[in-house]
């Protein structure tokens, strides 16, 4: 099928990050992937993205503020007519630097918290960061930029959803994303420790619904985990359909971790035009549209809504990227997801991202 118009660009500027969250969605071998694109290369890529129809660019990582040329990169995005949105963990970014980024054309900021309580947040992040995040959140609002808070939910912090909502209100966030952990990147490795119980999810869901009924801000997004769902999510809004992800090494992907699929041939923006990487790379076309689908997806009325779910999850759980996402109750590989879910347990240890000694932490 012809390549559709992409609306979003996810620019992973670097995989470096001072935080060490045990559910990081970066690849497990992130340390071996260096930053290949300099600011002029990103600027030229942004111009190409704009020509393809991209409207928004999310500047992410890793931690995008780990790059010393972030101001130039933001400027390049704004010059290309894109709407630059910064996705940050709040360090090493400072309020002064944020002000410079705004001058360079930054339009909005998403800031992650690991928990609503300082000690817990720092413990999950594997580094002191909560205080810096608070300062930064206030700076975002002082500068008149809209603020989105993001908290990844898991077994260790699901109890504190009410405090997270209170924090978002206190910080005047426009939106709070409560995203239950998905089994990508480091989270897959740490799933025993991270996957929540059904009771935790139901309680949190009820709290979110009650908070929404109060009719005041912020907008609350509650992303259910696949493990307790009957149907898969429309991963990335469909493979190669709406969003271009460009990794720090220049690889152009349909999602954050597509490079891990065996035999997939994706192209690099440092070597070819972005348009070719998006439209013509064999890997980008591998799961575009519906031709590749098998039963039961092929004839499923919901395929136009969920696009058969997540290819990476299908591969990592079932060993077959073209099988229906095991998050779907109709998937022939459903049992692999149930097994992963039932493997979760209390008091399991997790491994922090990037800990060279794979230090296990007793909790």
């Amino acid at each position, binding site marked *: 099928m012809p390549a559709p*118009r992409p*609306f979003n660009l996810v620019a992973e500027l670097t995989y470096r990050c001072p935080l060490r969250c045990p559910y990081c969605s970066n690849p497990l071998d992130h340390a071996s992937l260096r930053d290949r694109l300099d600011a002029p290369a990103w600027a030229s890529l942004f111009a190409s993205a704009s020509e393809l*129809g991209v*409207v*928004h660019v*999310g500047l992410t990582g890793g931690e995008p503020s780990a790059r010393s040329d972030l101001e130039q990169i933001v400027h390049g995005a704004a010059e290309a*007519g894109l*709407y630059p*949105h910064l996705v940050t963990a709040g360090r090493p970014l400072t309020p002064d630097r944020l002000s410079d980024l705004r001058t360079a054309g930054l*339009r*909005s900021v998403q800031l992650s918290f690991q928990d609503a309580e300082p000690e817990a947040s720092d413990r999950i992040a594997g580094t002191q960061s909560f205080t810096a995040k608070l300062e930064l959140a206030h700076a975002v609002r002082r500068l*008149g*930029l*809209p603020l*989105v808070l993001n908290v990844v939910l898991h077994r260790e912090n699901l109890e504190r959803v009410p405090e997270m909502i209170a924090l978002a209100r206190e910080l005047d966030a*426009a939106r709070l994303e409560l995203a239950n952990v998905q089994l990508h990147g480091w989270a897959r490795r740490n799933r025993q420790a991270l996957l929540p119980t059904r009771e935790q999810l139901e309680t949190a869901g009820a709290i979110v619904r009650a908070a929404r*009924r*109060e*009719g005041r801000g912020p907008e609350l997004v509650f992303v259910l985990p696949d493990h307790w769902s009957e149907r898969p999510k429309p991963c990335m809004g469909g493979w190669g359909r709406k969003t271009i992800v460009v990794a720090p090494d220049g690889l152009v992907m349909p999602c954050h971790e597509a490079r891990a699929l065996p035999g997939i041939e994706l192209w690099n923006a440092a070597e070819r035009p972005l348009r070719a990487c998006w439209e013509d790379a064999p890997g980008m076309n591998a799961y575009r549209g519906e031709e590749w689908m098998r039963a039961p997806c092929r004839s499923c009325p919901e395929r136009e809504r969920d696009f058969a779910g997540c290819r990476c999850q299908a591969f990592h759980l079932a060993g077959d990227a073209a099988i229906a996402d095991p998050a779907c109750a109709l998937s022939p590989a459903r049992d692999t997801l149930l097994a992963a879910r039932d493997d979760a347990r209390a008091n399991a240890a997790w491994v922090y991202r990037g800990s060279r000694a794979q230090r296990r932490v007793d909790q």
Partner: protein
Amino acid sequence: MSRVAEPVVGPDALTPDALEAQLRAIGEQRYHDRHPFNQRMHEGALTRHEIQTWARNRYYYQSRIPLKDSLIVSKADDPAFRREWLQRIQDHDGAREGEGGLSLWLQLAQAVGLDPASVERLEDILPGVRRACDAYVELVEASDLLTSVAASLTELFAGDIMHTRIDAFEQHYPWVDTSGLAYFRARTTQAPRDAAWGLDFVRRGATSRDAQQRCLEALERKCKILWSLLDAVERAGRRPALVSHAVLRFDEAESAWLVVLPERALKLGGSGRAILERCDGSRSGAEVMGEIAALAGASESADREVDDFLHAMERAGAICFEPARE
């Protein structure tokens, strides 16, 4: 609250006390005394023009009440019910010309500086207000007797708001002649009496879980209707302004204008761009409606489309409303 004879309740049904508690909880959370417009009214923060817009538009609501009550009467088989409910129609329409709640409201309109004849002719009613009030009549029309009565139970909460309002007008709006407050004074006694009767009817009549649920939902919908009425009044008086992080830009591929916001972009059709370009914080919502109606050749639906659009843009976070100016 205990009574000598409690009605029989079906399996899984709430007890009458539990039902009443839930009905009251809806009021506590959603009654329009919590609406920012009412709160500003009671704090003394409304401009004269906002008070006038409210008084004019709220008359449309008053004018629908006897229609709504007539529909309720037409649903009742019991003569005792009809006798009771006809009293409400008489409270509004009066026993003769110049009496009753509608007449008192026109007195208020005059006291706030409006031409009562123009108000009575229902001139310049905002489209959002018209729709909210018509939705109430339609809700009652489509509901059974019990549910219709439940929808009227916002009266449970009306007594308090009337006292607050009388105090607020006397304290903050001395330019309003106190003779204009007669409607509010009348309602301080009528509303609690009507509400007590209606509440008792619902407590006795809603004996299945299903019926109780319908009553709760009807009261919720009624609260939403009152809320959206004030939303519309507020939008007309305040000054819409495009938020600083919203970007208006032309999209080549779609041949359309977009308003771009964090993580979302909305395609603008029709007069969307023309409306947003006027949302600069200098014009009131009503003025924007007027300018667009002039552009569009003053079609009947233009005001309504602009009001809907402003409402949608506010919800999407593309515009905010700055306070009205004198």
